[in-house]
C-alpha cells in the first residue's frame, strides 16, 4: 500500500541528512572550529559566538535520551489508525535535539520516563525516504 503520510522533500543543505538515512546512517553536521554538533542542517555553525562556515558532516551514534514528548490521542488523515502515538524530542548523545516518533514502546506515560535511553530505528517508509524514529534501548 502506498505511503500516504507527509514526506520530507530534501533541499540542497539537507540532502546529505536524508541520503545518510537511506543508507541507515545518522548524519549530522559538526563545527570544525567549536567542535559542536548541531541540528537541523545548515551550511554554518549556529552556535552563539561561533557561526563558523567550517562545518563537516559526521555519522553519529544514533543513541540518545527521551527529552520530552506528547502522546497524540488524535490522528488525522493517514494518521487516523496510529493514535495514540508518541511525538517526542530526542536529545542525541552528541547534543542536538530532534523531533521524532517513538516505536517499540506502549504510548503510556508510565513506560516513558524523561531521559529514557533511546536508539535510532531506521523506518524505510518508501523506497526514497527513511525517517529517523527512536526506540528504547534493548
Amino acid at each position, binding site marked *: 500500500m502506498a505511503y500516504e*503520510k*507527509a*514526506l*520530507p*522533500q*530534501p*533541499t540542497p543543505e*539537507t540532502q546529505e541528512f*536524508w541520503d545518510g538515512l537511506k543508507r541507515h546512517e545518522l548524519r549530522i553536521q559538526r563545527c570544525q572550529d567549536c567542535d559542536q554538533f548541531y541540528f*537541523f542542517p545548515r551550511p554554518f555553525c549556529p552556535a552563539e559566538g561561533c557561526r563558523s562556515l567550517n562545518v563537516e558532516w559526521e555519522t553519529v551514534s544514533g543513541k540518545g535520551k527521551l*527529552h*520530552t*514528548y*506528547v*502522546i*497524540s*490521542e*488524535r*490522528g*488525522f488523515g493517514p*494518521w487516523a489508525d*496510529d493514535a*495514540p*502515538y508518541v*511525538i*517526542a*524530542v530526542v536529545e542525541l548523545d552528541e547534543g542536538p*535535539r*530532534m*523531533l*521524532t*516518533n517513538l516505536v517499540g514502546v506502549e504510548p503510556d*506515560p508510565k513506560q516513558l*520516563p*524523561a*531521559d529514557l535511553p533511546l536508539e535510532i530505528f531506521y523506518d524505510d517508509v518508501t523506497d526514497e525516504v527513511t*525517517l529517523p524514529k527512536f526506540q528504547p534501548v534493548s
Partner: protein
Amino acid sequence: MSRNSQEYSHKVAIVGASETETVGKLPDRSMLQLHAESAILALADAGLTIDDVDGVATAGPTPAQLTEYLNIIPRWIDGTAVGGGSFLMHVGHAVAAIQAGYCDVVLVTHGESGRSGVGVGGRGAAPSTIAGQFETPYGTWGPPSMFSVPIVRHMHEYGTTEEQMAEIAVATRKWAELNPRAMMRDPITVDDVLNSRLIAWPLHLLNCCLVTDGGGALVLVGEERAKDFPKDPVWVLGRGEAAAHTLISQMRDMTEWTAAVQTGKDAFEMAGMTHQDIQHAMFYDAFTHVPMYALEALGFVKPGEGGPYFAEGHTAPGGDFPMNTNGGGLSYTHTGMYGMFAIMESVTQLRGEAGARQIEDLHTSMVHAPAGMFSGTSTLILGND
C-alpha cells in the same frame, strides 16, 4: 539597547478599541469582513472613520489585502505576521512610527474565521520547508501536538502537575462566568479538566483554548492628540518583541520561554517599571501551560514556581494578580491569533468598562502573547495615568 527606550514610553495611546459586535460562531462573515467590522467600530469608538487612517497594521491578510478591502492608501504599513502575538508587536511598532512622523492615526486590525473557515486560505507546511522536513513527517497536526511538547520536561524538572495546570483552566473559567460575551461560562472543577477527553497527553480538552470566529481593532495616536477623543487614552508604556525559532525541537530550553525573558525585560525597561507595578495581566492562554511559562519567563515567579502559584488562586477573581479576566482563550474566545483580544481586555479594564469583572483602582496592565509555539513573544505594558 543603544538608546534609552524610556523616551518612547507614554508617547502614544490607544484611543479607539472594539471587537466585532459578537464573537463565537459567525459563519455569516468572511475573514476580511471581520477585520472591516472591527475597524469601523474601533474608529467610531474614537469618533473617527476609515478616512482618518494613515497607518495600517495587520496579520492574517497582508496589509495590501486590508487596504484594498478598506479602499485606502496609508502612508505606513506593518504586516508583521508571526502568529497570535503579532498585534502586540504592531502596537510597539506604531509607537515608533507615530513618533517618527511616518503617520498620525494607526489602525491595527484582527479578524479570523477560525471556527467557520469563511474566506480563509490553506494551511500546512510545504514538504521542502524546515517544518515540512523535520516536523510534519512525524504526525504533528496543529498546536495541541506541538505547543504541548515541552510540558513533560517542565513536569520532570520542577514537579509541575496536571492538577496545577487544571487549576489554571478553573481560575480562568471563574472570570468567564463574569463575562456575558464568553463562550464557556459554566463552572468547572479540577476533576472536570482531568476527566475531559485526552487530546495529546498531558493535555486534556479543557487544557485547550476554544476555536472561534471574531475580530478586534485598535486606533493609536500620538500624545499631542491623545486627549481629544471621547474615551480616556490608554498609554503604551512599554513593549518588547522577539522571534527565536519555529520548530518546537529548537526551543533552547524546554522549561523556559527564553524569548519571553527578553521581551519582559525590554518592556519593563521602557516603562521604567518593575513587577510590583503591574496590577493586571493578560497572558495569552492557548493552553493552560502557556501562561505558566510566561509567568516564570517574565520573572513574576521563579522558574518552576508557576504551577503552585496558579494553584494558590492568585490569578482568579479575588486574587492579588488578576489574569485573563475576560475568560481568556480557554473560556472567552480564541479565533486563532487571540493576541488582539488580550490587548482588548487590558484596554477595557483600564477604561473601567469591564462590568462585573472590573478590577478596582487599576492603572497598569501587562499583555503577553506568543509568536508561534514558544517561537517568539511580545510584551506590552499599558496604563491609564
